[in-house]
């Protein structure tokens, strides 16, 4: 089965601190794409960062970066200098075939 597991249902972090959200996945495919999506309380999902599985270099988008470990099938998201606006549900997703599979999400709260 091709699944995505986010083992941290809820996390919190102090403003300006760094937090890492975990994600593991299971697939027999070699080529796929990995994503982190953010869903703020307003409900609209937006893309945070994307990683191609064939690229060894970890993707970075401003304060957001990933630690992609292909052999371990791990794809964690690091948020540096956390801001109050980062408070949201974060979903890990990947596309092993012709669909996109999402994890159950991690609810992140940034505390002032």
């Amino acid at each position, binding site marked *: 089965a091709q699944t*995505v597991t*986010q083992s941290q*249902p809820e996390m919190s972090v102090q403003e300006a601190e760094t937090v890492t959200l975990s994600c593991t996945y299971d697939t027999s495919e070699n080529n796929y*794409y990995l994503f982190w*999506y953010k869903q703020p309380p*307003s*409900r*609209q*999902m*937006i*893309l945070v960062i*994307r990683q191609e599985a064939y690229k060894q270099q970890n993707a970075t988008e401003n304060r957001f970066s990933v630690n992609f470990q292909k052999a371990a099938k791990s794809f964690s998201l690091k948020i540096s200098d956390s801001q109050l606006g980062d408070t949201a549900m974060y*979903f890990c*997703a990947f*596309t092993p075939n*012709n*669909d*996109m*599979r*999402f*994890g*159950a*999400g991690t609810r992140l709260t940034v505390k002032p």
Partner: protein
Amino acid sequence: GAGVSQSPSNKVTEKGKDVELRCDPISGHTALYWYRQSLGQGLEFLIYFQGNSAPDKSGLPSDRFSAERTGGSVSTLTIQRTQQEDSAVYLCASSSTGFFGELFFGEGSRLTVL
């Protein structure tokens, strides 16, 4: 509009009734997706339309669920004889590049079946 638009934003219905949920994707996006998000759960893939190709219906949970996309644009998700377990937020997303690119999501339609 500039984004993906979904209607209604909230729908309350009685068990056994049929409901229709509508999605207007971003203009020019060839790919359109429906997902279901239940409380405390991730997103469950339902169906995927790509251009003029036959849709990927592999995620539809039962034959009570169906979807169509007219003219390569607007899509309607229909749930017949609704059950309480159908209560969820139904999210639509569109993309110009398929699953390998960014999905743009609507705000969802929250369905409550009494």
